[in-house]
């Protein structure tokens, strides 16, 4: 029982929400942490034929334990193919993958992400990792799932640095750029699930997590967030999903206990 009075934690809920975004037989570029757990959970529930691809060049990974890194040695034995970045990230770049996961320090209402700096690029208050494969995944995957801590300083009107394009300035701005991929489909935040309007491409709130209110989400978003007319509570994880996460995928709690 978590401190919030539910039989699951917020992190577990987010991993489950991510898993439900993946359909069977899809080709998914899997990161580390929650996206990895979400993808592995999908493979053990409704998407057994999902193909897990790692940017480090592993195609159809079938690890017997949960990998800790995109270059974990356990990814290699049993894979259908092992190459390098040209093979792993190259097919992302070519537009052949269905789903990619993204995160970052900031997101704006059109799903543009910042993974570089807080403050001025040339004189940063905080410097982060940089793009890594984020920009390539955001440009190349047919759709992306963004996972974010939902805080006012992270859900911002304008990102301090645009690392990975979402819908740029909204409307058809992204389409005009001619990327192989179509952009972010969903944002799974620590407070709720948000999607993008089909025409304006502006982010709106679809559901709030158990124990969270719409008001809390509005207060933790810097712009005037649009709320779906039939906004509802995020669907709870099933007992079985939680069991798989805890007992099979993260038995030592290395991913899910870190708050």
């Amino acid at each position, binding site marked *: 029982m978590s401190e919030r009075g539910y039989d699951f934690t917020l992190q577990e809920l987010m991993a489950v929400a991510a898993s439900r975004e993946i359909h069977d037989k899809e080709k998914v570029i899997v990161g580390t942490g929650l996206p990895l757990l979400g993808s592995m959970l999908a493979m053990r529930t409704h998407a057994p034929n999902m193909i897990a691809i790692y940017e480090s060049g592993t195609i159809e990974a079938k690890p017997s334990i949960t990998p800790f890194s995109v270059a974990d040695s356990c990814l290699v034995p049993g894979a259908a193919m092992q*190459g390098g970045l040209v093979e792993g990230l190259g097919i992302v770049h070519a537009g052949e993958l269905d789903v990619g996961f993204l995160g970052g320090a900031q997101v704006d209402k059109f799903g543009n992400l910042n993974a570089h700096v807080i403050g001025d690029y040339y004189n940063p208050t905080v410097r982060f990792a940089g793009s890594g494969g*984020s*920009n*390539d995944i955001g440009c190349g995957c047919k759709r992306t799932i963004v996972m974010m801590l939902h805080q006012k300083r992270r859900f911002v009107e304008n990102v301090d640095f645009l*690392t990975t394009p979402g819908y740029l300035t909204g409307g058809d701005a992204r389409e005009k750029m001619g990327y192989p991929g179509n952009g972010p489909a969903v944002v799974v935040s620590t407070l709720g699930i948000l999607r993008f309007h089909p025409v304006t491409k502006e982010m709106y709130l679809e559901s709030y997590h158990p124990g969270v209110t719409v008001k809390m989400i509005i207060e933790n978003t810097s712009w005037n967030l649009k709320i779906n007319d039939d906004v509802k509570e995020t669907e709870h994880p099933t007992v079985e999903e939680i069991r798989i996460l805890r007992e099979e995928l993260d038995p030592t709690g290395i*991913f899910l206990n870190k708050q």
Partner: protein
Amino acid sequence: MESSKIMTAKEAVSKFIKDGMTVFVGGFFHAISYTITHEIIRQNKRNLTICQSSFNEHADQMIGAGCIDRIISSYVWMEVFGPLYCFRRAMEKSIPHKIEMEDYSNFAMTVRFLAGALGIPYLPLNSLKGSDMMTHSQWMGENKVKLIEDPFGSGISHAVVPALKPEIGYFHAQRADEEGNVQMWGILGDAPWSVRACDKVIVSVEEIVSREVIGRDPNRTILPAYKVAAVVKEPFGAHPKNTQGYYNVDRDFIFDYIKMSKKEETWKEFMEEWVYSVSDRTEYMNKYIKKFGFRKFMDLKAENMQSGSVSYGY
């Protein structure tokens, strides 16, 4: 053997890595040559520009030690292990001195090496355009990346990135022969293109094998000997990273590094213990076994999972 390029890490770094050079640093999370990295730090190399698709703690250690002025990469961090604090201190507070970074995406870096390896001046790609990496440059200015319209009439513009051809590179692999025919398997990262883009390469390997062993499975060779300047035999040369088939990642050691590097003082203690006070890799591993025990050391060793063999007969 007359054509042998075998030498120690100390000799290889002293002979081939000079202050001010542009150095490719191989390994994508997997198979990073810590043995060469630590030797660069011990020999106090200065004003280096380092390049690699994505960097981990090895870059952080060189930054903290003051070896680095410039970085060309997409990433300096350690995934879910955490941030790299020397990198942050240098970028945010110019400690120990100001460093600059030219930011690309992971695939853009890979494409820069690919162009370098193929001997063409630039290549287009689908990524980067629309991002602030197109408009923000530290020292390359207009030559960092350009947007060009497809000359074949698709109506789409693409980012084009210049070839990257480092003067020298180093990386870690499973095995090589004395002349430097290198075989690698598992996660290749930006190899083979990155190492082929370099003018010259230092390779550290787990094992030296005969030319005959290389010839029995030539598809596994990722770099031919003519590109290789030095071969350094260094078992556990990638620790605390993994080398497929030999040993696993030492997670505890990496977590400990990140914890110790939060403050400059404790970072210095770590570096004194594991870099400055040891003269070579043998001493490093002996120290490791003495401190953590032989059992822990053996736990890192990889299980034997042999591949099947194929026939090259004709």
